C-alpha cells in the first residue's frame, strides 16, 4: 500500500489537539494546585501531576472564611436573578418576536446599546441610589441589579427562540379558546423549554461571576458573594494560593457543569438572536 499522508487531516488533528491542551491546561493547573499541600506550593522542581493529594486547602477556606455563606449567597442570588430576568425577558422577547409595532426598532436598539456602553459610568450613581433605597450590604440590591443587567441580552436570546416557533401554533390554541397569555404559557413555553433552560443557565452563570457591582454594594461578611470574598482574599502583597486555587475550583465547578449542559442551546440562541446576517 502506498503511504499517503493526508495533510489536511494531519493539520486538523495536530491543531485541534494543541488547542485543546492550550484551553484545558490552565484549568487543570489550578485544580492540581488546589490539591497540593501548602509546603509544596512553591517547592521546585514543579510536578505536573500530584502524587500526594490533600484536601487541606478546601478545608482551610471553610475554616479561614465563611465560604459556606458565600456559596449560599451566590446560589440564592443567581437563582433569583436568573428567574426574574427570565420571566421579564420571556415577555419582552415574545412581543418582539411576534408583533410589528411602532418603535420596535428603538426598543431593540435601547437593549442593544446596554451591551455596548461601559456601565461603570453608572456605578457611582447606582451606589448612591442603593444607599437611598437602603439596600447597601443587602443581597436584594444585587438581585435587582443582576436581573436588570441580564434582561436585555436574555430578551434577545428569547426573541431568537420564539422566532423559530411558528406563530400558527399559538394561533391554533387561541382559536381553540385560549387567551394569548394562556396560549403562550400552555403551548409555546413547553415547546421551547430547552431554550428557556439555556437562557436561565446563561443568566445564572453571569450573575454567579459578577464582581464589580458586588464589590461596590457589599462589604459585610454575611452578604458577600463568592467573587467578592475571593477579591478580599487578595491582599496587597501576597495571595494564599492554596486557598485561592481551592476557591477558584469550587466557584468554577457549578458553572462548568451547567455550561456543558446548556452550551449547545446557548450557542444556537445567541446566533439565532444576536447575529443574523
Amino acid at each position, binding site marked *: 500500500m502506498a503511504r499517503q499522508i493526508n495533510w489536511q487531516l494531519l493539520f486538523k488533528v495536530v491543531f*485541534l489537539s494543541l488547542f485543546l491542551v492550550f484551553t484545558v491546561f*490552565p484549568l487543570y493547573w489550578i485544580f492540581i494546585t488546589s490539591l497540593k499541600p501548602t509546603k509544596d506550593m512553591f517547592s521546585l522542581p514543579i510536578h505536573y501531576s500530584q502524587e500526594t493529594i490533600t484536601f487541606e486547602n478546601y478545608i482551610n477556606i471553610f475554616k479561614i472564611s465563611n465560604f459556606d455563606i458565600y456559596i449560599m449567597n451566590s446560589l440564592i442570588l443567581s437563582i433569583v436573578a436568573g428567574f426574574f430576568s427570565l420571566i421579564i425577558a420571556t415577555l419582552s422577547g415574545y412581543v418582539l418576536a411576534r408583533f410589528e409595532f411602532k418603535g420596535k426598532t428603538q426598543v431593540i436598539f435601547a437593549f442593544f446599546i446596554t451591551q455596548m456602553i461601559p456601565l461603570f459610568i453608572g456605578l457611582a450613581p447606582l451606589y448612591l441610589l442603593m444607599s437611598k433605597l437602603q439596600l447597601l450590604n443587602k443581597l436584594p440590591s444585587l438581585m435587582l441589579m443582576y436581573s436588570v443587567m441580564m434582561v436585555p441580552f436574555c430578551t434577545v436570546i428569547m426573541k431568537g427562540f420564539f422566532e423559530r416557533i411558528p406563530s400558527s401554533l399559538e394561533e391554533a390554541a387561541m382559536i381553540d379558546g385560549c387567551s394569548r397569555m394562556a396560549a403562550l404559557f400552555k403551548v409555546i413555553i413547553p415547546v421551547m423549554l430547552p431554550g428557556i433552560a439555556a437562557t436561565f443557565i446563561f443568566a445564572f452563570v453571569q450573575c454567579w461571576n459578577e464582581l464589580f457591582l458586588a464589590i461596590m454594594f457589599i462589604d459585610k461578611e454575611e452578604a458577600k458573594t463568592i467573587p467578592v470574598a475571593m477579591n478580599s482574599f487578595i491582599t496587597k502583597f501576597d495571595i494564599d494560593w492554596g486557598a485561592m486555587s481551592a476557591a477558584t475550583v469550587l466557584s468554577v465547578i457549578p458553572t462548568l457543569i451547567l455550561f456543558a449542559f446548556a452550551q449547545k442551546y446557548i450557542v444556537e440562541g445567541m446566533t439565532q438572536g444576536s447575529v443574523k446576517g
Partner: protein
Amino acid sequence: MKTQTETVTERSLPSFSISRHGLFIFLCLLPALLLVTVFIYYPLFKGVVMAFQSYSLFDLSNIEFIGLENFKTVMADSAFKESLINSFYWVFFSLLPQFLIGFIVALLLRRKFRGRGIYQAFIFFPWAMSGFLIGLIWRWMLNGQAGVINDLLIKLNIIDTAIPFLADPTWAMVSVIVANVWYGITFFAIMILAALQSIPDELYEAAKIDGANYIQQLFKVTIPYILPTLIVTTLLRVIWILNFPDLIYSLTNGGPAGSTHILSTFMLEKLIYGQNYGQAAAVGVILIFILLFFSIFYLLATKFNKAGDF
C-alpha cells in the same frame, strides 16, 4: 396539535393590528423597559452629569458644576495617557490572535466528526468563566517563583532563565494579552462556527464544479457568506475588551507601575480607590466617545448597515 406544527413549513407573518394588541405589547414590554430605564439608563445619565461635577465621596457637601475641569485634570495625568495607549495595544493585539485562531478552530469544527460534541464542550468552557477568575489563574501560572509557564518554557528549551512576567512592564502587557486571547478565542469560535453551519452545501458544490480549491472556496464562498457575522462579532468583541476591566484587575491590577492600565481599569481605580466619582466619570465619557467613534468608523469602513438590528 403536533401534526399541525409539522405541516407548517414557513413562518407566518403576524397579521394583527396595532390597536387591538397595543395594550398587550405595552404591558409585556413595560417591566423590561422600566427596569432598564431606571437602573441602567438613569445611572448612566447621572454618571455623565457627574463628569462635569466636582463629585468626590470625601466631600459630598461640595458638589458643583465645574465644566470641563475633570476632563482637564484627567487628561493632564500621565497615567491617563499611558492607559489610553495601552488600550489600543490591548485591543489590537488581543483581537488579532483571537480572531485568527477562533476562525481556524471554527473551520476545523465545521464538519461533524466523532467526539466533536465533547471537544466543543471542552474548548468552549472559558466562556463560562469570569475575567476575574481567568486573571487569577493566569496570575498563578505566571508567578515568578513557582510559575508553571516559566517552567514549561525552560523545559521546552525556549528560554534559559525564568522571565519575570508580572514584574516587568513589557512582559506584564504581553501577559495580560495572552490571558485575554485565551479567554476570547472561544467567543469567536462559537460565533463563527454557528455562522459556518448556516452556509448551504450547494454553494460549495457549485464552487467545486467550477474547480475552486480549498483556499479559493474560503475566500469566494465562506468569507463573503459569513462576513456580517465576522463584522458584528469583531465589533462586539472590541467593545467588550475595552469595557471589561476584570481580567486585568485580578491579573496585574494595572501594575507594575501602571504599565497594564487600560482606560476601564484606570477608571475603576479612580472609582474604587480614589472615590473621585467626577474624574472617574470623565474617563468613562471619554471611553464612550472612543467607542462611538470607533463603531461609526468601523461600520462605515465595512459598509455594513445592519448592526442596529443585531
